[in-house]
């Protein structure tokens, strides 16, 4: 019995020595793995894991990922960040999909002075005025300008109409930025109609829009409502082009709108598994993904997840330390980092500059048309 006790003690001691000898860098990940945003959150986690598998070390130490599910819920999101920082003592955080989730988690990270890199949270407020929040995606003003630039330059649209969900921050913001750029580029907004989240009937607004004969209708909606709007517009005989933002990038858009989604154009991040002229980093990511997950197509969320991990390990390497303050400083200086989303440089608001990807629905499939530089 005594012998056993001694053995157990020795083993414990050996184990403790071994674990301290191999120093680890803990990076927290909080993403919506269940709930309504799970589709994007799961893909982003796969992207993070792939980047980790490819490059599991930074400054010679092992990087350990601590993964938390924020359940697509703001309260859970703040709790997840709190737990990562207080219990798991992470030095940096990756996440999350969804601006409102990122803002809830961001408050906690900011208070604890732990740097965080957002995957796909496009609202300007996520990083605005924050010292510790960064992101891998562009922001809505940029995206709205990208859509307007494409409408004016490529589609030669002169008159645009808008249909905006006034109870949704994303929609109001994106709509405003589209309007601003479109008029700046010489276009005219012929009408701006509104609705509220949860509305299902848009016939009155669409009848009004059709009577104004615009060249393009911009709907900064989520896919569920967007699909219905497209359908009702075509049923009422609308012949103009319909455009939307990245929230329309979902397979359900086509299944809800059916034939009415033909020719629909929306903005997205500059990555697609079928994009022409893929940059070497994107090629590398796509090949690695196909080897790791043969049954899943890599999408833009996966690329964003991958990019956040690259940004953090790159910052740790440049800082030469895993101290949160040093990582924060290095992240803010991120410049010309090659990622699947192109050469990434963060501006003073911690937002990357990257071109806006344009996707069109053709024969029920998403086709990556190319990129535009917003004006």
């Amino acid at each position: 019995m005594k012998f056993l006790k001694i053995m157990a003690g020795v083993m414990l001691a050996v184990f403790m020595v071994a674990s301290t000898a191999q120093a680890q860098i803990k990076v927290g990940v909080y993403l919506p793995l269940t709930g309504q945003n799970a589709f994007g959150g799961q893909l982003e986690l796969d992207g993070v894991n792939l980047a980790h598998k490819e490059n599991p070390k930074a400054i010679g130490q092992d990087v350990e990922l601590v993964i938390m599910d924020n359940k697509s819920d703001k309260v859970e999101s703040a709790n997840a960040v709190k737990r990562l920082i207080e219990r798991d003592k992470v030095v940096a955080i990756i996440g999350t999909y969804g601006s409102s989730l990122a803002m809830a988690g961001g408050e906690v990270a900011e208070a604890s002075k732990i740097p965080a890199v957002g995957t796909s949270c496009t609202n300007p407020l996520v990083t605005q005025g924050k010292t510790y929040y960064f992101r891998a995606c562009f922001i809505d003003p940029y995206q709205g300008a990208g859509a307007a630039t494409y409408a004016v330059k490529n589609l030669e649209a002169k008159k645009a109409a808008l249909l905006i969900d006034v109870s949704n921050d994303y929609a109001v913001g994106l709509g405003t930025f589209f309007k601003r750029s479109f008029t700046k580029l010489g276009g005219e907004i012929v009408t701006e109609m509104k609705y509220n989240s949860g509305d299902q009937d848009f016939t009155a607004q669409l009848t009004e829009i059709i009577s104004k004969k615009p060249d393009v209708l911009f709907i900064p909606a989520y896919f569920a409502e967007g699909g219905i709007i497209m359908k009702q517009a075509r049923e009422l005989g609308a012949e103009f082009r319909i455009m939307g933002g990245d929230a329309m990038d979902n397979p359900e858009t086509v299944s809800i709108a059916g034939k009415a989604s033909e020719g629909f154009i929306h903005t997205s991040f500059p990555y697609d598994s079928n994009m022409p002229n893929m940059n070497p980093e994107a090629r590398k990511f796509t090949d690695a993904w196909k080897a790791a997950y043969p049954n899943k197509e890599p999408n833009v969320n996966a690329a964003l997840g991958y990019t956040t991990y690259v940004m953090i390990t790159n910052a740790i390497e440049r800082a030469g330390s895993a101290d949160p303050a040093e990582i924060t400083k290095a992240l803010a200086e991120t410049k010309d980092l090659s990622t699947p989303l192109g050469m990434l440089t963060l501006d003073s608001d911690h937002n990357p500059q990257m071109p806006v990807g344009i996707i069109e629905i053709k024969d029920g499939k998403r086709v990556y048309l190319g990129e535009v530089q917003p004006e």
Partner: protein
Amino acid sequence: MTWELFVQNLFNALTVGSLYALIAIGYTMVYGILRFINFAHGDVFMVGAYFIFFGVTAAHLPWPVAALVAIGGASGLGILVDRIAYRPLREAPRISALISAIGISFLLENLGLVVFTGLPRPAVQPQWMVDPITLGSIRILPLSFIVPVVTAILVLALLWIVYKTRPGLAMRSISKDIETTRLMGVSVDRIIALTFGLGSALAAAAGIMWAMRYPQIHPFMGVIPGFKAFIAAVVGGIGSIQGAVLGGLLLGTVEIMVVAFYPTLSGYRDAFAFVLLIVILLFKPTGLMGEKLEDKI
């Protein structure tokens, strides 16, 4: 506004309004007989839409068969809900049953979230329902005619059941005096179960039609239509079937015409529609058709 635009909007209004009417008659029937507002009505509406979705996509039934199965399934659900959640509270104050109904409403929504997931699904639409008919510049969906016809048929069937059959006689009797009806040897519980079965069948029929017009189904799809149809039923005079139809059509027309005549107010559509309805209630507190008590069924 041009003449064509006005006619187009009139048909838009007819489509929305008759859908509200279809939901409202279910509310009003249960209220007319039991003096009880079934807040779970909008959620049975949602379940009906899911039943037909799975009937067509999972069980590969032809559309009309799936519709009948969905209506049957929903009325079974209505009877089950009555047995579990309302019948034990029959002797309790009416407010308890109301709270129980709200509980059932949340239960069905969240059960839907777990079982069907929150992802919106595309409803299956038979093609002949969705190809618009063109009259000059006016475009009308076949559904704009089908929904009012379905509503009319269901209203007539309902009136026939309530006024011409023996269970209908028992229903009317229960609405007057439940205790005396029991003393007359009527199986009150069975008649009430039948009432919920019928009400749920109406909800499912409305859910199916709604999903035809707005082909996207999710567990919370019944909340707002249910709420609006309830208001339509109250404006029409709750308890009156004709009033529910009138209230539904009125609400649909107001919603469309507010936007049609005042495009800049489109973001406040609901606010303006409901202010108008409040004004109606201020002048006719029992609703448009709610005066003559003997009209209630």
